[in-house]
C-alpha cells in the first residue's frame, strides 16, 4: 500500500502518457495494418466463378444438369454477350472488343470472336461457358435454390457477389497488377542504387574528415548536413533549374553556348536525374552514421596494423573497412528505407519512372483508396526491414566503438588525399550550386526567361486556383505556427517519457518507450496514412473527426518527431547518477519537485534538442503531412511540393528559401544559447544510434 502510494504519481503520469502514445502512435500504425488487409466491394470474376462452382457442386447431379441447361437456355441476348466475355476471361484470353460500345456492335463482335476460336480454344471455351453464365447472371437463383445448404454469410456472398472481409489481396496487387509490379521493381532498383552511391559518398567524406585529410573539414561537416534541414524537393527543383529541359547548364551552357547536346533529349528527367537528386539529398544521412562510427574507432588499432608492417592500403582494406562494416550496413538499410518511402524528388523529376511512393500518393489523393495505399505503404518498408533483420541475424550487433577516440596518427597518402577532397568538395560544390540556383530563382520573375529582379514570389506571387489562392510565402507562417505549437509540447512529452522510463522505472515503461520509437523506425507515410484512417471518423463519431483541422497537423508532427527528444533524454539520464535523485527524494522532494528542480536542469539540453528537432522537421517534413493538409490549413512543405510538381519554380524557391532562413536562424540561436558545438551533429548522432 505504502509502495503504491509512493509510486502513485509516477504510475498515473505513465498511464496518462501511455494513453496518449497509444492513441496517437500505436493506434494509427495499427489502423494502417488492419486497413491494408480489409477487403470490400465486388468479388473479382475468377474468385466469384470459383465460389459459384463450389455452390453448384452442392446441387445433386441430376438437378445440377437440368438446372444448368435451363439457366443457360434462358439467357437474354445481352446476357449472352456478357457471358461470352466472361468465359473468354475465365479461360485466360483477352476480350477483343470494347465492353462499353453499343450493344449490337458488342453482340456482333462477340459472335465473331467465338467463331475465330481455334478448336482447342473452342473446347475450353465451351467447358466454362455454362459456369460463366451462372456466375454472371443466375447466381441469385442458385443461391435461393441452395438456401438450406448455405450459411447466411455464404448465402449473402453468393447472392450479392460482394464481400466484407480480410485478406492479403491488396498486398498481392504488387504481384498481380502490372502497374504496381513495375513501380515496386523501380522502387527497389532506385533504392538499391542510391543507398549504395550515397553510402559510398558519405563514407568517403566521413573517412576523409576523421583522418584529417579534408581541407576545411569543419566547414565540410556543416555544409554536408544542409540537405538534412532543407524543405522537401529543394534538390529536385534546383536540379530542374540547372539540368532540366530549359536548365541553366543543359540548355544555357551545353546546348546554346557549346551546341553539344539537345536539352530536350538530354536532361535530368529519368533515372539519372532521380538518382543524382536522391543521392545528394541522402548523403547527409549516410555521412552522419559513418561519421559517428569512424569517430569512435580507436586510432591505435590502425596504428597497430601499420606497426605490423601493413601499407596504407592494407590498413584501410584489412582493418578500417571491416571495422566500419556495421555502420555501412546500417547506412545502406537506412538510405534504402528512406528512398523507398520518399515522395518528393521522384515525383518531381521522375514522373515517367513510376515508384511505389507515387502510387501511394495517387491512391491516397486521387482515388481515396486507403486500403491499397496502406498495403503499398507496408510494401515500402518491408524490404528494408527484411534486410535489417537479415543483417542482424548474420552479423549479430557488432560495434567496434571505444572510449579512446583519438584518430590514428598515420598520414593519408597524397593521391588518396586528393581523391577524398575531390569527392567531398565535388558533392558540396554541386549542392551549393543547386542551393544557389534556388536562391536566385526566388528573386527573378521567371528563371531563364525574364531575369528582372523581383520580390513578388515572397510577397504577392502565387499559384492561383489549385487548392486555393495563395500569396507569397504566407504558407510558411502556417507551418511555423503548427511546428511552433508541436515543438515545445513534443519536447516536454519526450523528456517526461524519458524520465519515467529511465529513472522512475515504472512497469510497462519499456513498452511505452518502444511505442515512442515507432515513428523513428517507420517512415512518415505510415503515420500519415494512419492518421487519415484513424482520425477521419474516430469511433464512427463525426464530431471527433480531426481530418481537415490544424490539430491533426500539430499532433502528427509532434508524435512523428518526439523520439529524438526521448532518445536524447535517456542518453543524458544514463550518464548521470541516479543517486542524486535518491538524495533529493530522501530530502523529501516529491516526484514533480525532483523532476522540475533536480532532473530537468540536467536534461535541459535534451529538451532543447528534442524541441528543435520537432520544430525543424515540422517545417520540412512532407511524407506524413501531405495527406493531412486541407484547404483551410496548408503547410509550406506541401505547397512547395505542389508548386514544384506543377512547374511554379518561383513560388517553390521563395518558400524553400524562407524555410531555410528560419531553420538556420533558429539553429543559430540555439547554438549561440547552448555554445556546445553543432547542435545538428548531436541530433544526427542520436538518429544514427537508433538506426
Amino acid at each position, binding site marked *: 500500500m505504502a509502495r503504491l502510494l509512493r509510486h502513485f504519481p509516477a504510475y498515473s503520469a505513465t498511464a496518462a502518457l501511455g494513453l496518449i502514445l497509444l492513441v496517437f502512435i500505436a493506434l494509427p500504425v495499427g489502423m494502417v495494418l488492419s486497413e491494408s488487409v480489409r477487403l470490400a466491394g465486388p468479388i473479382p470474376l475468377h474468385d466469384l466463378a470459383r465460389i459459384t462452382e463450389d455452390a453448384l457442386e452442392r446441387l445433386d447431379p441430376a438437378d445440377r444438369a437440368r438446372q444448368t441447361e435451363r439457366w443457360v437456355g434462358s439467357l437474354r441476348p445481352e446476357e449472352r454477350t456478357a457471358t461470352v466475355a466472361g468465359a473468354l476471361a475465365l479461360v485466360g484470353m483477352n476480350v477483343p472488343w470494347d465492353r462499353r460500345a453499343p450493344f449490337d456492335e458488342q453482340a456482333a463482335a462477340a459472335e465473331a470472336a467465338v467463331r475465330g476460336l481455334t478448336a482447342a480454344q473452342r473446347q475450353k471455351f465451351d467447358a466454362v461457358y455454362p459456369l460463366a453464365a451462372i456466375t454472371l447472371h443466375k447466381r441469385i437463383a442458385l443461391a435461393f435454390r441452395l438456401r438450406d445448404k448455405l450459411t447466411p454469410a455464404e448465402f449473402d456472398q453468393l447472392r450479392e457477389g460482394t464481400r466484407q472481409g480480410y485478406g492479403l489481396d491488396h498486398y498481392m496487387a504488387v504481384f498481380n497488377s502490372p502497374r504496381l509490379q513495375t513501380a515496386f521493381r523501380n522502387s527497389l532498383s532506385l533504392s538499391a542504387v542510391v543507398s549504395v552511391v550515397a553510402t559510398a559518398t558519405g563514407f568517403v567524406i566521413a573517412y576523409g574528415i576523421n583522418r584529417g585529410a579534408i581541407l576545411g573539414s569543419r566547414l565540410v561537416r556543416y555544409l554536408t548536413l544542409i540537405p538534412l534541414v532543407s524543405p522537401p524537393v529543394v534538390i529536385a527543383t534546383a536540379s530542374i533549374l540547372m539540368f532540366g529541359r530549359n536548365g541553366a547548364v543543359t540548355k544555357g551552357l551545353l546546348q546554346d553556348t557549346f551546341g553539344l547536346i539537345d536539352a530536350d533529349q538530354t536532361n535530368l528527367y529519368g533515372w539519372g536525374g532521380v538518382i543524382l537528386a536522391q543521392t545528394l539529398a541522402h548523403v547527409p544521412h549516410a555521412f552522419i552514421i559513418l561519421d559517428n562510427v569512424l569517430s569512435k574507432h580507436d586510432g591505435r588499432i590502425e*596504428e*597497430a*596494423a601499420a*606497426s*605490423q*608492417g601493413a*601499407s596504407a592500403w592494407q590498413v584501410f582494406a584489412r582493418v578500417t573497412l*571491416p*571495422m566500419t562494416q556495421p555502420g555501412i550496413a546500417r547506412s545502406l538499410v537506412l538510405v534504402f528505407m528512406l528512398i523507398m518511402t520518399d515522395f518528393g524528388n521522384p515525383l518531381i523529376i521522375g514522373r515517367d519512372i513510376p515508384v511505389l511512393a507515387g502510387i501511394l500518393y495517387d491512391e491516397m489523393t486521387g482515388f481515396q483508396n486507403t486500403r491499397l495505399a496502406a498495403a503499398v505503404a507496408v510494401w515500402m518498408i518491408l524490404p528494408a526491414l527484411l534486410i535489417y533483420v537479415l543483417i542482424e541475424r548474420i552479423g549479430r550487433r557488432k560495434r567496434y566503438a571505444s572510449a579512446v577516440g583519438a584518430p590514428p*596518427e598515420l598520414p593519408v597518402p597524397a593521391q588518396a588525399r586528393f581523391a577524398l577532397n575531390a569527392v567531398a568538395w565535388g558533392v558540396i560544390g554541386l549542392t551549393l550550386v543547386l542551393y544557389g540556383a534556388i536562391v536566385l530563382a526566388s528573386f527573378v520573375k521567371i528563371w531563364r526567361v525574364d531575369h528582372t529582379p523581383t520580390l513578388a514570389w515572397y510577397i504577392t506571387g502565387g499559384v492561383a486556383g489549385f487548392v486555393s489562392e495563395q500569396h507569397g510565402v504566407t504558407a510558411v507562417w502556417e507551418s511555423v505556427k503548427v511546428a511552433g505549437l508541436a515543438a515545445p509540447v513534443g519536447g516536454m512529452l519526450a523528456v517526461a517519457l524519458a524520465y519515467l522510463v529511465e529513472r522512475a522505472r515504472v512497469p510497462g515503461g519499456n513498452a511505452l518507450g518502444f511505442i515512442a520509437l515507432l515513428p523513428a523506425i517507420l517512415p512518415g507515410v505510415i503515420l500519415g496514412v494512419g492518421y487519415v484512417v484513424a482520425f477521419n471518423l474516430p469511433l464512427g463519431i463525426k464530431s471527433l473527426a480531426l481530418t481537415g483541422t490544424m490539430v491533426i497537423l500539430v499532433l502528427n508532427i509532434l508524435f512523428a518527431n518526439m523520439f529524438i527528444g526521448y532518445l536524447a533524454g535517456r542518453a543524458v539520464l544514463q550518464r548521470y547518477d541516479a543517486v542524486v535523485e535518491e538524495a533529493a527524494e530522501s530530502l523529501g522532494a516529491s516526484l514533480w519537485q525532483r523532476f522540475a528542480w533536480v532532473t530537468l536542469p540536467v536534461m535541459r539540453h535534451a529538451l532543447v534538442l528534442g524541441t528543435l528537432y520537432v520544430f525543424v522537421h515540422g517545417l520540412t517534413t512532407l511524407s506524413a503531412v501531405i495527406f493531412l493538409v486541407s484547404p483551410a490549413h496548408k503547410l509550406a512543405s506541401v505547397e512547395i511540393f505542389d508548386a514544384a510538381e506543377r512547374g511554379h519554380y518561383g513560388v517553390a524557391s521563395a518558400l524553400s528559401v524562407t524555410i531555410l532562413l528560419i531553420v538556420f536562424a533558429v539553429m543559430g540561436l540555439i547554438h549561440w544559447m547552448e555554445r556546445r558545438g553543432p547542435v545538428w551533429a548531436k541530433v544526427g548522432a542520436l538518429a544514427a544510434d537508433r538506426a
Partner: protein
Amino acid sequence: MTQVALRDISKTFGPVRAVDGVSLDIESGEFVCLLGASGCGKTTLLRILGGFTRPDMGEVLVNGKRVDMLPPNRREVGFVFQSYALFPTKTVAENIGFGLAVRRRPKTEIAARVAELSELVRLNGMEQRYPHELSGGQQQRVALARALATRPAMLLLDEPLSALDAKIRAHLRGEIRAIVDRLGITTVYVTHDQEEALSIADRVAVMDAGRLLQIDSPMDIYLRPRERFVADFVGTSNALAARPVDGRRVQLADLTMDVPVPDGLAAASSITVCIRPENVVVRPAGSGGGAGRLHSVTFSGAMVRAVVATAEGRELVADVPTHEWRRLALRRGDAIAWTVRPDSLILLPGDQG
C-alpha cells in the same frame, strides 16, 4: 653495443613542448622503462620510436642508421598499446598472424608462428576466439604475441598494464619480463607506475615536462636521485633544508651528521637533504636527536607510518616496522626524538625545502 640512439629529440604540439631535447642511448637487449606522470612526454617519445610521431628536431638512429623519416610499417618494431588495439573483426590467430599475412608469408609458416606465440603467451586453445570474448589480461597477451610475431628488432610497450587490475598487473609484469628475457629483444616500456618501473627494468628513465631527468638502474634511481623531482616521484621523501659544514658534515636542524658532501655542494650555504621515510628513526623523547611531536599515526600492515611535527614546524614522514613500533608504545600527541640514518641522506643543491 648501442642499438637505438635518440639525439636531441624535440616535439611540440601547439604550445606544449611534449618532448624537449631528449638524448638517450639504448643497448642491444636492454630493457628500459620511461617513467613519468601523465603528460610528461614519455608516450610521445615512445611513439617517435614507433614511427607514429615525427620529431620536430633531432635524430633517431637504429644501429647507426637514421630512421626518423620512416613510416611505422617500415620500422621493424613491435608496438603494444595501452588500449590493446586488437583488430576486433579478427580472431586471436588472425590478430597474431596479421603482420605475417600482410608480408604475404605462406599460410603454413603463419600457422606455425601463431601456434608458437600462442604457446609463448599461454593462450593456446583460444586461437579461434574474438578479442571481445577475452579478458583484459588475455587481450594484452594477444597484443604482446602480435607485436612479437614478425620478430621485430625492438619491442615498444605503452603502459600495457594500466587498464588491468592490480593482481593481474603484477603477474603479467613478471611474465612480460620473462618473455623478453627469453627472446633477448630490446625493449622500451612506458609506465607511470614507479613500482612497475623499478621492478621490471634494467634502466629507468625518469621524465618530467618533456625532459629526461635521469636514467639509471632502478636501485640508483631510488637511492641516488639527482634531482628533487626524481626523489619525490620515485618513492616518498622528506625534503629538509640543511647546511654543509667543511665538506664532511651536514647540519640538519639541531643534528650534525658525518656525511661526505660532494665537491659541487660543499661551498653552498644551504642545500636540500632528502630522506626516505624508512630512514627516519623515531624514539621516545629524551633519547637524543631532534625534538618533535607525533602528529598522526597510520597503520598499514608491516609498517606504521608516523608523521612527526618537528620543533621547527616541519613535517617529517617516518616508516617504522610494526614490531618495532609495538616496543616504542607511542601515541598520537606524544613528544618524541627523531634522528636519521646518516648513510642514507640524499644531498641535492639549493634550498628546496
